[in-house]
């Protein structure tokens, strides 16, 4: 029990400390929609780096990637590759998103659809898909949070209650501060995550095997097939790898919170510099792979969803409680901070694109901020209730996030780089793509090992181009 108190105490102190640090660092608390939702479009290169890294590296990166390494081996390597591919596409895409955002005063991802295609039903459809897919993504973060708190408490404390309390605290925090608060809190989160990953990815292999290299020597003897991908059409084989890296790389910045982050930049060169330098951050995934393989050698035999907790099992079993406390604190922040960015973007979409554009509610700056903040709190509460009520069935709703969001990519890429693109083409491709992606994914259909989302994206692009060629372009909006 002493152990549980000390490690949970560390988690608690870190979460509270992060919130206080962010509150003290904020020079002004925002109160126009521009300030609250996109940080006044004033973020410089370093601050945006921290915000993007804070949003991208969630508890899934932490638990899921190590779990995949433990459970599947080499297929987990796709996580390091797709982010890097995503940043190359980002070099071209992000400055254009920023530019149209700045020129038209855009706040949310669906705003792009109104600005580029000037079509209200399309923007409303995008708003609904974004808003509906964000909630299960937030509940996934809650499940991650609960795992970290369960481990920090050595399984002796009610982690669900702990998760609820810390989640409510973070929702109140983003209610008060908006996007600037998320960016400030991300500073502590990033520092702690890097520290925790250096520990689990380097200290553990060094202590148990001598070095990561000798750890791989042992892997070569014990699990040689885990170090390579399966044959071409095998599940998670090479065809799966190629199609998945392309799909997720193209969709990398399609999340509504990523689009909002692009709007928040001070200028376009800030985004180009981030696209150049963020791949460096991907390298820390190596440490996650080291941790997953080490856990497989040290604590074999975990199956099912327990593989996601493999390195926590090792830390809990072999290290003092304060080490466990810091690792779990880093994990808890990985669940909480991206949740703030997700809730903020869902709330702003509902306030601006649904309430404002559709029903003409809360059109003044002051009312729009009040409504967005109210919705942050309401959606936070909604996510909490959904999570408590339907924990397991939500997993299938996540398919909508992962497979649906990527289908927005042709609307952005074609919209920016091909003048002939028409609303009819993009809308048809988008609806067909989302429908096919969710259908194939929900039935786990993957012909020849191809990622189902990739098949849907191919259909989406084909339809978007064909129908654009068949329909007349209005004078392009940009």
């Amino acid at each position: 029990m002493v152990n549980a108190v000390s490690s949970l105490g560390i988690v608690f102190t870190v979460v509270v400390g992060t919130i206080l640090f962010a509150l003290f660092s904020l020079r002004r608390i925002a109160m126009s929609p521009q300030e609250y939702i996109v940080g006044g479009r004033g973020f410089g290169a370093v601050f945006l780096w921290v915000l993007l890294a804070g949003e991208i590296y969630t508890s899934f990166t932490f638990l899921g990637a190590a779990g995949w390494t433990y459970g599947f081996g080499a297929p987990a390597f796709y996580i390091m590759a797709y982010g890097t591919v995503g940043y190359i596409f980002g070099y071209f895409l992000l400055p254009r998103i920023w530019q149209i955002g700045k020129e038209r005063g855009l706040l949310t991802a669906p705003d792009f659809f109104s600005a580029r295609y000037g079509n209200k039903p399309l923007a409303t459809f995008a708003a609904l898909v974004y808003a509906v897919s964000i909630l299960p993504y937030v509940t996934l973060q809650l499940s991650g949070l609960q795992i970290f708190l369960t481990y920090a408490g050595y399984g002796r404390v009610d982690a669900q209650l702990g998760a609820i309390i810390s989640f409510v605290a973070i929702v109140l925090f983003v209610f008060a501060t908006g996007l600037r608060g998320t960016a400030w809190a991300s500073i502590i989160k990033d520092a702690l995550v890097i520290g925790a990953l250096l520990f689990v990815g380097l200290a553990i292999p060094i202590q148990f095997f001598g070095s990561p290299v000798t750890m791989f020597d042992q892997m070569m003897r014990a699990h040689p097939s885990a170090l390579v991908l399966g044959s071409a059409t095998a599940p998670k084989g090479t065809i799966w790898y190629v199609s998945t890296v392309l799909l997720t790389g193209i969709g990398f910045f399609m999340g509504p919170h990523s689009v909002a982050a692009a709007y928040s930049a001070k200028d376009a060169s800030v985004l180009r510099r981030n696209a150049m330098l963020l791949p460096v951050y991907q390298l820390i995934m190596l440490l996650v792979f080291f941790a997953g393989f080490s856990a497989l050698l040290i604590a074999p035999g975990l199956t099912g969803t327990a593989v996601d907790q493999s390195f926590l099992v090792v830390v809990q079993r072999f290290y003092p409680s304060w080490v466990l406390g810091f690792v779990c604190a880093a994990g808890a922040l990985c669940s909480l901070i991206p949740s703030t960015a997700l809730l903020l973007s869902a709330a702003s979409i509902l306030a601006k694109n649904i309430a404002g554009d559709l029903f003409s509610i809360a059109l003044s700056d002051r009312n729009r901020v009040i409504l967005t903040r109210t919705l942050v709190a309401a959606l936070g509460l909604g996510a909490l209730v959904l999570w408590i009520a339907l924990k397991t069935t939500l997993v299938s709703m996540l398919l909508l996030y992962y497979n649906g969001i990527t289908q927005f990519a042709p609307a952005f890429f074609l919209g920016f780089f091909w003048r002939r693109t028409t609303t009819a083409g993009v809308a048809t491709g988008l609806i067909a793509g989302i429908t096919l992606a969710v259908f194939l994914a929900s039935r786990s259909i993957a012909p020849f090992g191809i990622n189902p989302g990739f098949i849907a994206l191919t259909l989406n692009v084909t339809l978007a181009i064909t129908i654009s060629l068949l329909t007349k372009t209005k004078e392009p909006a940009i």
Partner: protein
Amino acid sequence: MHARMRFLLAGIPIVALTIAVPFVNRAEPRIFGLPLLLAWIAFWVIVTPAFVWGLGRVDHRW
């Protein structure tokens, strides 16, 4: 010339991290102790910033 250069600078790392990967899908030889597949991916993650830097030069952005 300009367009072809941009195409190459963006395309080479993307191809290296996707379509080329099935051809290096082996654990040996080990590079700096890492299995070949992992070393290949890590190498391209490390050099991608140089390609994006090159893109910025071609575009006169820095």
